[in-house]
């Protein structure tokens, strides 16, 4: 099981802070495809963080990892 954290407009769009994916292992790219298909999330401008570090498209996510969907930031 992989937990995916949502922030900002994504949280509002998805309607919850967290999504659960019943998968043991997948790449960042596969994760985004799945989110797009299952939750209609526009993944075009998203960046993925795995365990609080920005991840590459080919990085592998495993069950138990903390994944976060990061829309373009606007702090400061």
């Amino acid at each position, binding site marked *: 099981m992989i937990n995916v954290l949502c922030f900002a407009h994504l949280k509002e769009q998805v309607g919850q802070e967290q999504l659960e994916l019943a998968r043991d292992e997948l790449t960042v790219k596969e994760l985004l495809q799945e989110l797009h298909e299952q939750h209609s999330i526009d993944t075009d401008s998203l960046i993925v963080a795995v365990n609080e570090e920005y991840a590459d498209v080919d990085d592998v996510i495993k069950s138990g990892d903390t994944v976060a969907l990061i829309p373009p930031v606007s*702090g400061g």
Partner: protein
Amino acid sequence: MERLFIVTDQPISVEEVTKKVVRPEAGAISNFIGTVREYTHGRRTLSLTYEAYQSMAEKQLKRIGEEIKEKWPDAKTAITHRTGDLAISDIAVVIAVSTPHRKDAFRASEYAIERIKQIVPIWKKEHWEDGEEWIGNQLETEAYPEGKPKGEEIYD
């Protein structure tokens, strides 16, 4: 252990953040203070809401402090960013950088705010008279600077 990089839902004291970087080796401190501006491009903002991925945001702030240390080895940096609902003129972020000489302090402080707007997972929602919206990518540029994955390019 003093916490130099903080994301908090409490009001920020400029004095408190500044004190963390005062030290005998330093002769100069440059603060940057971001406050909520009422008008942007002629549109009136009523209030802002900041949301953060707090644990990662604090890590990223710390990273900025490390980047500054690499570029300006004599610098000491402290940053506090606020989250939650903010009114006009409220303080959203306070950066303090101390260095032996003043030019480095200015440069490093400006570097810090630029980097915050690039790599720290904090989001701003603007509340206007006629609506509200989450703001993304304030830099108004498509390409992401180094140190952060390239967004759509990377995942296409």
